């Protein structure tokens, strides 16, 4: 199959890659660009472990084609911290023990950040419904909800 040439921006940096027309953005990120922070938990858009944003929109990168990244702005977990300064969400996840095995964590952080950009002060219920597409099997979500709320409060300056 002839490969496609794609120019894109990931976490603010320019990237170019070749990919097959049927190759997912997740496979491109992980296998071609070495960005293995996004995880494949299902490959069918059910678990959210591969969450990234494309032009500001939260997506499962296993359901997006690599070719769709042409000209787009993609952000992944690798771009969340500012150098060695963690994002408040990342800090509160560590401080609040909101991860156990940590494999769902990149996706949940990306999803939570996308929510707080739209809604800086979500109710627990809004937050739970927003994160309903991100499965976590270890924590029972309790500490995740608390950590996101703690980060949201800090980001609002509350």
């Amino acid at each position, binding site marked *: 199959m002839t490969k496609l040439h794609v120019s894109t921006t990931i976490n603010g940096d320019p990237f170019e890659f070749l990919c097959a027309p049927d190759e997912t953005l997740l496979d491109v990120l992980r296998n071609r660009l070495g960005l293995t922070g996004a*995880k494949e938990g299902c490959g069918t858009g059910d678990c959210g472990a591969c969450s990234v944003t494309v032009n500001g929109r939260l997506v499962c990168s296993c359901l997006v084609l690599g070719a769709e990244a042409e000209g787009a702005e993609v952000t992944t977990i690798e771009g969340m911290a500012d150098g060695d300064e963690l994002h408040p969400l990342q800090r509160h996840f560590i401080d609040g023990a909101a991860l156990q095995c940590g494999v769902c964590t990149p996706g949940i952080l990306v999803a939570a950040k996308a929510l707080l950009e739209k809604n800086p002060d979500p109710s627990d219920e809004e937050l739970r419904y927003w994160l309903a597409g991100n499965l*976590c*099997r270890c*924590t029972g979500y309790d500490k995740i909800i608390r950590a996101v709320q703690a980060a949201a409060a800090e980001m609002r300056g509350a």
Partner: protein
Amino acid sequence: MSLDEYTRREFKQVGTRVRRPDGVDKVTGRAMYGADATAPGMLTGRILRCPHAHARIKSIDVSAALALKGVKAVITGDDFAVPEDDFIRDVQENCMARGKALYDGHAVAAVAATDAAAAKAALKAIKIDYEVLPHVTDVDEAMKPGAPVVQAGRVQENVPKGYSENVTAHFEFGHGDMEAGFAKADKIIERSFKTAATHQGYIEPHACLASVTSDGKADLWCCTQGQFYVRTLCSSIMGMEASQLRVTASEIGGGFGGKTTVFIEPVALMLSKKAGRPVKIVMSRDEVFRATGPTVSSSSDVKIGMTKDGRITAGEATLRYQGGAFPCGTTEFGCSAAFAAYDLEAVRTYGWSVLTNRPKEAAYRAPGAPMAVYAVESVVDELCLELGLDPLETRLKNAARKGTKSSYGPTFPDIGLVATLEAAKAHPHYKAPLKPGQGRGLSCGFWFNFGGNTCVSLNVNTDGTVGITEGNPDIGGSRASISLMAAEELGIPYERIRTIVADTSSLGYNDVTDGSRVTFAVGLATIKAARDAIKKMSARAAKIWGIDPEAVEWKDGAAVPAGPNAGKFPPMSLAEIAAVSAETGGPIAGHYEVNADGAGVSFGVHLCDVEVDRETGATKVLRYTVFQDAGKAVHPDYVEGQMQGGAVQGIGWALNEEYIYGPDGRLQNPTFLDYRVPVASDLPMIETVILEIPNPGHPYGVRGVGETGIVPPLAALSNAVSHATGVRMTELPMSPPRVLKAIGGT
């Protein structure tokens, strides 16, 4: 060995909520999981799986696959030598079928190719001639004489005659005169129950990277709960010496018991050996569901007698577990756990292990216990309801305690069940009012816990910091807990210690991360290794001071002369001793190796409130509280995390999760869309109450906490739904259609 007895102490660091050492890696995407590794010249491995529930493999033609461009190796079951040991042979045959495929999804061949597309094409080009055989997936059907036989010749000597050959083992536990016991009862209730098979549902699919070289050496990177056990299994299957196979455990994306064995690792090793290149295999979610370990599904009968004032006079349970196509290993634990919470004069449990055409069961948190305790706790609840008794008071009245002859034989030493029940009774949740249409459920739960083989090295660095090398993959924050215990013992700050998980060539054998053993056993070995290092550091200080080593004691992170006769020397800190270690005899390290016993059994009590939508049959969990004895919570956040995670997995098991088989014997729901695990919007906060009743078998009183939490939710939810609807629920999961049917809806 003698037990390492608990001594009471004031903790300075243990019990604090420190930051875990792998936290930054995990929130930035840097942590390396099973699928994240690469190797030069790496090939992509893929596995072909049988589309039938039961089929003889008449022939496999791989020639067309091998002829494709980019395909470097193809293997089938015939590439593996037949292991002599029965157990190893089962593990190997579960990884790849030989002669007969035993379940939908059973691996039958595998390929290694230069990329995923080539590997996929190669799988399509493999031609297999199957003779489809009759199949059986239901436990009760499989027990009947005349049922299709999954594997012949596997029946243990303890099985009475008259059953299908699928019945491989029979167990009986208990004591007392059953007839006399039931005769004393004012009320006897008998019920039958069914539970569906559920999957551990870890978010990370199995993944590994194998590299076998022509000189007979091999490296294996994989996500596993136990790299040493992977080495044992793979070296046996591959006919390799253990020393030549180095297994490195990646960060692990959940396991819950499901990553305590191998599925793809021997396949990747064989492909790598044949292709002469590294091979990586990553399972799809479909493969995880179809071919890795779910739990057993069960069918059971329970009969319990009670007096009017709430004393249980006799209890009997018959448990039938199907564990898939290979002999099941959890029935005996279901039998042992079923009535463990009760002090009974007459008790009997009977267990049957049954083969079916389903994937081989794997451990899942307290393997075998949840479905047994579910059935018993449901009947206890119904008796309380019928006799107008308070379910908590009734459990207190019958609770096992120190000196109780347990339902599985031994007399209990100090146990925490009564304290746990008292805590639940005192909690505001128990007295909180309910609205119409809502119900409250309660259940006890039990698990054994164990210790096991453990080996720890503790290295004192010359700058006064400490490195700990241990051998158990960290699934829920155990590196933090281990560092905390070392910090406590050594008297240095937690931040100066770094704990790493070693590969199999870097440390002696460690049992798998299972049995709730890590904080208990690795913690115990770490404390002992720290004491070994302290002894050596004290000897160095004694040498420097020119006094007897016995005249030195360790206090607040420093060697100090003990008593007035030892001389007057200022304390020498760990850092000061470490700085001159080269001059005083060389590097300082502490070690400890043990097969730890004395883990101490664990009890939990769960309370939950639900509301059932009578139109849809959907159950909403409104409030949930977990009470559990941790002995000593080393890192309370991660103890709470185990309790919350276990509870929510149990909620999923009770309400939605199930393996659904069609009449063709194929799994119908191998996706997270159709196999529905709890999501954030399904749940309330999960409140936790940690009790700390010290375990006499651990220096800090630690008890394992990982498994007990999944035992009580099944009955807690079922009792709550039964109260909310007024109809006794007897089958799990209580999915909306099943609840609707039970309450007479459509």
